[in-house]
């Protein structure tokens, strides 16, 4: 993305030809990374950006083809959440982040595939079929922002937006060998992001490098009164100089290197930590005693919030309606039975149960208590270190048809990514090696709330000394 912006200024590339090349790449890719491609709109936006560049506008996003996860509303451009129930929904307004991107002249090239309503880790639950991993099309790109990650890795766009509720930006970034940030909760407005689990959802930028990711992050964050969780704090631009690692304390939690972690992932992550040490950082062993409860807490809280958020899909105001039902109650039940896929139904059922009379205290309230303990674990750890390093996912990308029958075993793969969402802190994944099967491996960095710049800077410095992010599928 930054390379593209530079080439626009040197006039050896124009936004129109860049957009044409990306559209051609999308057509040829065979990855099913996009649900909707906006060819006409993209060409119009590219022409507008070219004019602004000619007038001397220095904006880094001008004319840059950006792909957007299909759960972020785009005015007059279909937004499906990869669900049958919204397959013909055309939003009457832009999400806050889309308003910002348009204002800065980015080209919205299309909408990317996801697990239905962002519930999943493979894109397999999409009503439009799974996306393929550009490194090996028989494997999953991860999820739920799998379309965005595959599109960035395969060069179908210059950067992309995803959303991350329990790892949905970082896990596919790890599986596809790109950089993806789950920002601090509250730093990016969710106005126009289709709600899944409101106390956890964040929109996140994804790019080929940490610098691309940082530029996109700066472009979309900021206070927005239309999201009541939006933080009104100061927003200073992220430095692109990288972080001087001398004297930086990196916490290494033992619990992130215990059972279930595959050996090749561990090897690459330990290599990354030792490189940080060579660059002057100091490693500190830390304890996060309640992390082991993270998956249980998450799979109570997220489905509970989802069951409430998804109650709006009732066949009345938008989306699918099963029309031949005479009775309102039957119309609701039949519409939702036909409009939602298996995983969404499973989570709605789980969440409804966890909130139902007689079970609320045992599940939802209990999960909220333990969530506080997890947040407290991080608060305590960050008194002893500036950031935390570990693997993003215990494994590399697996086959598209593997693990389809056992929901719990897929949930357990979220073990390293869920804690940052539960605690509201920023976390990113960046490429740090390749597994025995040749698939990319992700390193996860986490920092205290609103210290997104620390992990972005550390990632930039890491990428100044490594080439993993430059290897192409």
């Amino acid at each position, binding site marked *: 993305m930054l390379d593209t912006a530079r080439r626009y200024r040197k006039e050896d590339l124009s936004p129109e030809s860049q957009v044409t090349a990306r559209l051609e790449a999308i057509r040829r890719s065979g990855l099913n990374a996009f649900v909707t491609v906006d060819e006409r709109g993209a060409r119009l936006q590219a022409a507008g950006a070219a004019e602004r560049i000619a007038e001397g506008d220095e904006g880094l996003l001008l004319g840059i083809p950006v792909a957007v996860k299909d759960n972020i509303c785009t005015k007059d451009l279909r937004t499906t959440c990869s669900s049958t129930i919204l397959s013909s*929904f*055309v939003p*009457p*307004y832009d999400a806050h982040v889309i308003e910002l991107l348009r204002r800065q002249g980015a080209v919205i090239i299309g909408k990317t595939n996801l697990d239905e309503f962002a519930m999943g880790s493979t894109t397999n639950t999409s009503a439009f079929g799974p996306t393929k991993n550009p490194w090996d099309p028989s494997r999953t790109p991860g999820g739920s922002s799998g379309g965005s990650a595959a599109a960035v890795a395969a060069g179908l766009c210059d950067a992309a937006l995803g959303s991350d509720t329990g790892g949905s930006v970082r896990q596919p970034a790890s599986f596809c060998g790109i950089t993806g940030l789950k920002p*601090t*909760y*509250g730093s990016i407005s969710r106005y126009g992001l289709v709600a899944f689990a409101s*106390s956890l959802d964040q929109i996140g930028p994804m790019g080929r490098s940490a610098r691309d990711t940082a530029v996109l992050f700066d472009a979309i964050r900021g206070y927005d009164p239309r999201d*009541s969780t*939006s*933080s*009104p704090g100061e927003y200073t631009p992220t430095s692109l100089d990288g972080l001087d690692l001398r004297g930086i304390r990196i916490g290494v939690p033992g619990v992130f290197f215990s059972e279930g972690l595959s050996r090749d992932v561990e090897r690459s992550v330990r290599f990354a930590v030792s490189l940080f040490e060579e660059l002057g950082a100091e490693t500190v062993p830390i304890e996060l005693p309640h992390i082991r*409860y993270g998956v*249980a*807490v998450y*799979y*109570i809280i997220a489905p509970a919030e989802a*069951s409430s958020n998804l*109650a709006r899909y*009732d*066949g*009345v*105001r*938008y*989306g*699918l*309606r099963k*029309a031949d*039902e*005479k*009775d*309102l*109650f039957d*119309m609701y*039940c*039949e519409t*939702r*039975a036909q409009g939602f896929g298996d995983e969404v*139904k*499973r989570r*709605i*059922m789980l969440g*409804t*149960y966890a909130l*139902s009379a007689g079970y609320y205290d045992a*599940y939802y309230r*209990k999960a*909220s*208590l*333990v*969530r*506080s*303990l997890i*947040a407290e674990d991080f608060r305590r750890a960050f008194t002893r270190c500036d950031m935390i390093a570990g693997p993003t996912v215990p494994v590399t990308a697996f086959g598209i048809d593997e693990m389809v029958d056992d*929901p*719990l075993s897929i*949930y357990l793969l979220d073990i390293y990514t869920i804690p940052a969402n539960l*605690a509201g*802190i920023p976390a990113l994944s960046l490429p740090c090696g390749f597994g025995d099967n040749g698939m990319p491996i992700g390193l996860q960095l986490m920092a205290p*709330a609103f210290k997104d710049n620390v992990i972005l800077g550390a990632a930039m410095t890491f990428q100044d000394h490594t080439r993993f992010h430059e290897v192409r599928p």
Partner: protein
Amino acid sequence: MKLSEEEVLHVARLARLRLDRDEVARFRKELSAILDYMDMLGEIPDHGGQPYIHVHAGMNAMRNDVLAPSLEIGEVLRNAPGVHGGSFEVPRVIDED
């Protein structure tokens, strides 16, 4: 199994989901297994703690109460599966007798 068939049907009714026979059996099995996993939370004592509220607890972002235009009715109704005049159309809610 933790959940009975009746409980699955009760939850489905609360969630406004019609499930077929196969789904009831499958969800009963899968949800029971997931709830068994959740039992680990019982290891943690209940007393003394506070439920999690917000990552930035204590901060309350209030916006100013200013009038602003909202969406046009036509725009709002554009995605509706049933429209009558300027309203959403739904199946009959109240019986005739």
